C-alpha cells in the first residue's frame, strides 16, 4: 500500500514536430491523495484522454514529472523500465464499457492479473471473491460476463481494477451508459473502495449526474487544467 497518491507536475505532451505539431497537454499539474476520488472534466478534444493515457503509462509525455506513491515514474523520460508491469501492479483501469474478457467467467476475469503474474490460482480466486463480495456481485461469481446486467458488469470491472490493490485507479467515463441511480451507485462503490484500500481515483467524466459527488474537480481545456472545489455531495 502506498502512502502518497499520484502527483503530476508540468506534464506536457506534443504530437508531431515543426509546423504541424499539436500540444495536447500543456504544463498540467495535478495531485490526488490516497483514498481521494477526483473528477477530471473537459469537453472532447480537451486532452483528457491524452492525460489519462499518460497517467496510464500507455503514451510517453514529452516533458514533466509523474510520481506514483513515492516512486517517480516519469521525469522527462520514463524512469521505469517495465511499463507493463507498472500498469499491472500499480494502476487499475475502469473503462467506459466493462470490457470483461468474454471467455472467462466473472471470478476469473477478476483474478486474471494475479494468476498471469504467477500467483497461485486458489489464492487469486479467493481474493477475487472477496472483492466481488464487497461489490455485491458475489452471487454472480460463476456466471459468464454475457449473463450479467450492465451494472453488474461494471462492478466486476471495478473489482478487476482493484484486484492488485493498485495505488491509482483511472476511470474513463465509468458511468456514461448508466442511469442516475446506477451511476450514483457506482460512485458510491468507487468512493468506498478508495477509502477502504487507500487508492487514489481519477474519474474522467462529463456526466452531469455524478459531478456533485466530487469534492475536488480538475477542469481541463485546451491542454491546461485548473482545479476547482466540488460540491462533495455525500453518497
Amino acid at each position: 500500500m502506498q502512502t502518497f497518491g499520484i502527483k503530476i507536475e508540468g506534464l506536457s505532451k506534443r504530437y508531431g514536430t515543426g509546423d504541424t505539431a499539436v500540444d495536447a497537454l500543456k504544463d498540467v499539474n495535478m495531485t490526488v491523495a490516497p483514498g481521494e476520488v477526483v473528477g477530471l472534466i473537459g469537453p472532447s478534444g480537451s486532452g483528457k484522454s491524452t492525460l489519462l493515457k499518460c497517467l496510464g503509462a500507455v503514451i510517453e509525455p514529452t516533458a514533466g514529472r509523474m510520481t506514483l506513491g513515492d516512486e517517480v515514474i516519469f521525469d522527462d523520460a520514463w524512469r521505469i523500465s517495465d511499463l507493463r508491469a507498472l500498469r499491472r501492479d500499480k494502476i487499475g483501469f475502469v473503462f467506459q464499457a466493462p470490457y470483461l474478457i468474454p471467455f472467462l467467467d466473472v471470478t476469473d476475469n477478476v483474478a486474471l492479473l494475479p494468476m498471469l503474474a504467477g500467483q497461485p490460482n486458489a489464492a487469486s480466486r479467493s481474493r477475487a471473491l472477496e472483492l466481488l463480495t464487497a461489490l455485491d456481485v458475489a452471487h454472480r461469481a460463476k456466471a459468464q460476463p454475457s449473463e450479467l446486467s450492465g451494472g453488474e458488469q461494471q462492478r466486476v470491472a471495478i473489482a478487476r481494477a482493484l484486484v492488485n490493490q493498485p495505488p491509482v485507479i483511472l476511470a474513463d467515463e465509468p458511468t456514461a451508459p448508466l442511469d442516475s441511480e446506477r451511476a450514483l451507485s457506482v460512485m458510491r462503490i468507487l468512493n468506498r473502495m478508495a477509502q477502504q484500500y487507500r487508492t487514489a481515483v481519477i474519474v474522467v467524466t462529463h456526466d452531469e449526474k455524478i459531478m456533485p459527488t466530487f469534492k475536488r474537480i480538475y477542469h481541463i481545456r485546451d491542454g491546461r487544467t485548473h482545479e476547482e472545489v466540488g460540491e462533495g455531495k455525500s453518497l
Partner: protein
Amino acid sequence: MKFSIPVPASGSALVRSRGFWLSVLLLALLLAFGVIVARSGPLAPTRVTVAKVGEGAITPALFGIGTIEARRAYLIGPTTAGRVLRVLVDVGDRVKAGQLLAEMDPVDLDERITALDASLARAGNAVTASEAQRRDAEARNQLAGINARRYKDLGDKKFVSSSAVEAKLQEEISARAGLNAAEANLSAARQDTLRLGAERDGLRQQRGNVRLLAPSDGVITARDAEPGSTVVAGQAVLRLIEPASLWVKTRFDQGRSAGLALGLPAEIALRSDPARALSGKVVRVDLLSDSVTEERIAQIAFDTLPEGISLGELAEVTLKLPTIEAKFLVPNASIKRRGEQVGVWVHRSGAAHFVVVKPGKASLGGQVEIVDGLGEGDQVIVHSEREITADSRLKVVESLAGAGK
C-alpha cells in the same frame, strides 16, 4: 455458443460441467482414434480361420476336357485320281455295309476291258490252232517213226540202200522236232491266254474300284465332293462313321493324371447339356501322350449312347478313383509353399508355425490327404487376410467373407 445446462450455484461444479464434458468428448475422440488405428490399417492383427485336421474318406478324381469322336471313322475315296461321276448318299444318311455310296468316272476302263475281251478270244483261237498243229506234228512223228524202223529193218536185210535208211532216220528226227515245236507253240498260246485273262481281271478290278462301297454300317458325316469334281487318290469323297462307336477323347494334365487306368468309372457332362449326367468308363489309355501340351489322352466310352450328340462336341469328364480312408485331411487352401518346401501353417498357442508336410491324394472338392507331418488335433490355418509369417499377430474368426480391401 451456450450450454443449456442450468448454472449451478457452487463454483467448482460449473467448471466441471463444461470443461469436464468437453474433455470427456475429446478423450472419447482420441480413444476412437486409437481404436481405429489398432483395428484397421497395418497395425491390426491378421484375421484368420482355422480348421481342425479332419479324418475321413476322400474320393480323388481326375478331371479332363474331351471331344466326342468316332472310334471308327472311314474316309471313302478313290485309289486313283479321277472325276466323281455320281454321289448317291448325303450327310446323315444311314448306310449298310457294301452299299454303293458313290461312283467315280470310269473313263476308258470299259473300252479297255472290251478290247482285252477280244484279245482273249483271239488268244483262245490261237490255242485251238496250236493244238491242231500239234496233233498234226504228232501224227507225222508217229509215221516217221514207223518208217524209220521199217527202213532200218530193211537196211539191215540189205533190201534198201544205207542212204535211204539215213534219210528215213533223218525224217524221224525232223518229225520229232516238229512235234516239240508244235508243243511249244501250244504252251505259248495257252500262256498268252492266261496273260490276257489276268490283264482283263485286273482292269475289271479297277473298274470295281471306281464304285465306292460302304465298308460297314454307319452314318454319313460329310460329303466332300460333288459329281463332276476331280479328286486325287486319298482325298475323301464321303466320310462315314459307326455311330455306335462314339467315344470321348479326353485329355488329362500329365501332372494331375496319377491313377489313370483302364476301366475307371467316368461322369460325362456335355457342353450342350451340362445338367444331364452321363456315365461311362475308360476303355483305352493311349500310349502316346501329347508332349507339347503335356497331356495324357484316354478314351472314355458311354455306358448308354445319348441321343442328339454331335462329333467335335466338348465334354467335361470326371474319373472317380477308388475312395481312400485318410487319417489326416486338410482343406487345400491351407497348403502353402515357402521356398522349396510344401507345408501348412499350424495354429499353436496363438501363433503360426510352419510345418513341412507331405501331401497325398486330393479330392476335387479341395480336401487333401496329409501323409506325413501333422498329428491329431492340429489346427491348420485355412484362410487369412494377408500373407502369414512366423511373427504375424493372429485373430481367429469364423469366416472372412466380406473382408474389405
